[in-house]
């Protein structure tokens, strides 16, 4: 639970020595309470106070990396129940589950598919983040070989060791310890041994229980054995269990500051029907999973899941944007039409898509309006005639094309007069209000 400034002050040396950079211990305490400064800035604080304060100031949901290296993904660290309250920070990792008893060729094929799953969307590179290797062979030598094979075929992908048999798990962990695999997992029966393996190899450990309440004693035990990076599986399998368990867990961590549930959640959304599996995984992504495991991937499915994750995790306060520049759509010539819009990525993608649909090669001038849509930007004074005129002049488009005709969005038809005054020699044409009117509009102009 968060402490108030005064409560923190009581734990400080109260010497006002200023070594922390603050005039008094109280000023430092106040800043600490807001989370605006690091505890370590005070050199004289006692070990005992440090422990109390450290626990109290720890984030309600622990944050750590899944995997190692450049493509490791941060999980946990969420601070709100609803994205509109602030934002969701660390996008849910998507993992493919593979059974170790498949043939080597099949294992390799799946691993390569994951390694090559990256797609770019609205400027972000998105991919399947992890492979969960399931201990289905019941043969520890086979498991170790499968893990090694997958690790080398997908050299940057995070690994989840889906194995509850400690001796097999230990061999596998050792084989890929440098990849920081997530060990899955610890149950009531094996918790001590698994915690020992996780601790010795410095890897995170997932607990697996039946129900939310059953997680508590497990995470407490694992933590007391010295493992801090914990992931939780409440055993949720159906869509309903996923929503209910994950909601209870996140509420407990955020609202009650209940530490034993303050860890990232993993959900297994495994189904034979691939489309249904995608829908179920999207429920987990929207409702608080930090890792969702699925049983098959395909390009169409990945694209849909990545897009959903991107939507849920965008910052509601800072819209996604594209770069300001004159985009080419098709192979425009110096005769092709020139259109203008704002740099809100949604606007850009809709408008460029419709221009593409028209099959009329065009120039699309995208103006930086801090990621606002056309009308919002206009209402906020960022898409005004003066600013548009300046942008067109600075963009150098006048040297690129030989006509001086600019098509503006129908929603800001009102700007056309003022724009013609400010952009000397230019003719302004008001386009349709909705981008879906663009194909007809563009085709009729060239006809």
């Amino acid at each position: 639970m968060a402490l108030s400034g005064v409560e923190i002050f009581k734990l400080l040396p109260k010497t006002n020595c200023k070594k922390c950079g603050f005039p008094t211990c109280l000023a430092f305490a106040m800043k600490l309470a807001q989370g605006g400064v690091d505890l370590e800035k005070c050199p004289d604080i006692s070990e005992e106070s440090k422990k109390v304060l450290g626990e109290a100031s720890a984030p309600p949901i622990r944050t750590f990396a899944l995997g190692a290296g450049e493509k490791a993904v941060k999980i946990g660290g969420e601070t709100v129940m609803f994205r509109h309250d602030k934002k969701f920070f660390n996008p849910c990792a998507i993992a493919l589950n593979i059974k170790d008893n498949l043939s080597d060729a099949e294992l390799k094929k799946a691993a390569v598919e994951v390694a090559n799953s990256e797609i770019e969307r609205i400027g972000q590179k998105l991919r399947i983040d992890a492979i969960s290797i399931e201990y289905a062979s019941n043969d520890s030598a086979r498991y170790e070989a499968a893990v090694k094979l997958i690790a080398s075929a997908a050299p940057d992908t995070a690994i989840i060791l889906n194995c509850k048999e400690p001796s097999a798990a230990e061999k596998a962990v050792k084989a890929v310890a440098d990849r920081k695999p997530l060990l899955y997992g610890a149950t009531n029966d094996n918790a001590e041994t698994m915690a020992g393996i996780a601790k010795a190899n410095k890897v995170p450990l997932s607990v697996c229980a039946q129900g939310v309440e059953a997680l508590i004693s497990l995470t407490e035990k694992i933590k007391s054995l010295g493992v801090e990076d914990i992931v939780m599986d409440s055993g949720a399998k159906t869509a309903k269990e996923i929503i209910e368990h994950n909601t209870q867990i996140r509420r407990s961590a955020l609202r009650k500051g209940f530490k034993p549930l303050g860890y990232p959640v993993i959900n297994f959304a495994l189904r034979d029907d691939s489309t249904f599996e995608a829908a179920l995984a999207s429920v987990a992504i929207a409702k608080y999973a930090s890792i969702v495991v699925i049983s098959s991937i395909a390009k169409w499915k990945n694209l849909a899941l990545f897009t959903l994750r991107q939507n849920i995790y965008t910052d509601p306060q800072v819209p996604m944007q594209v770069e300001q520049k004159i985009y080419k759509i098709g192979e425009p010539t110096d005769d092709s039409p020139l259109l203008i819009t704002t740099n809100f990525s949604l606007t850009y993608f809709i408008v460029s898509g419709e221009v593409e649909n028209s099959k009329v090669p065009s120039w699309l001038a995208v103006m930086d309006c801090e990621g606002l849509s056309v009308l919002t930007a206009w209402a906020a004074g960022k898409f005004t005639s003066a600013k548009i005129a300046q942008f067109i002049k600075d963009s150098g488009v006048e040297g690129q094309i030989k006509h001086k005709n600019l098509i503006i969005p129908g929603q800001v038809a009102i700007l056309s007069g003022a724009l013609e005054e400010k952009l000397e020699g230019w003719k302004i044409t008001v386009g349709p209000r909705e981008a879906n009117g663009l194909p007809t509009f563009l085709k009729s102009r060239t006809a």
Partner: protein
Amino acid sequence: MAYAVPKEAYNGKVLNVKFGKAPNAVSIGGENAMPFLSFEGEIPNKPVIAFEIQDMPPDDWPDTVKNQFAGVSSDPVKWAQRCQNELKAQAIALRLISTHPDRENRSPQDAAKTVKDVLSAINIPLIILGSNNVEKDASVLVAAAEAAGGYNCIIGKAQEGNYKTIVAAALAHNHKIIAMSELDINLAKQLNILITQMGFNKENLITDPMCSALGYGLEYTYSVMERIRLAALLQNDATMQPPIAGDVGMYVWKIKEVSASESEAPLWGSLEERGIAWEALTAAAMLIAGTNLLIMRHPKAVETVQKVIKELV
């Protein structure tokens, strides 16, 4: 450590709206908890999916979904029967798209006839949607409401610019109404207030805060819906308590992801499955944000979302 399941105390409740005629009438809403959290409230009704049909051939729909209705889609009556009898639809949403001035600009009388024909061919509830042209809908939906008198339909969408005539017609002929505003919780609230101020019972109202497709503003719709639901339940805001509608199909089946061929977009994989997944995932997200009534197009997407619903209740 002692643990108590953290439960939210909700003061409000989503209104229960029943539409259609016995024995196939359908109820939506009625819950007093956030979506599917039955550990802390009652969720008496499952979300309902209505199949969308149109009063003219869906030439502008991508092949993936258009082909599903080959042979019936040039006739709304056959199309409706196919949805009811073969696809086991719970409800049908008839979009009178031909009345749009940019389409065939058909008259309100033509629309009324289509409504009558469809109603006499089915026994499941009907949702009657205009073409989303604010001026034209004002007359088309009035004629449609009259033609559907006695069938307890849902008529939509009433918007800020045309709600007066539509609400009056729904009042006169005992229909429910979908009130639509554009992705703004305050506008949604204001429109509900304006409509109830005309003497329209709020228990006959459904809110459409405007849908958007996955990848095309879904996050705005998602959050507006969550906020509407929180206002209804936590703040007991009576103006925010109507059930929510998500008009998914029309927003999904016009974007690039559901129509770009595999050769055009080699990184996007199978077009067929991509389109279905797009509609199913958009709908699933709407459901968990609070949607009670979905309007969808592709039978396979509907089937998938039905499976999700089955697991959610």
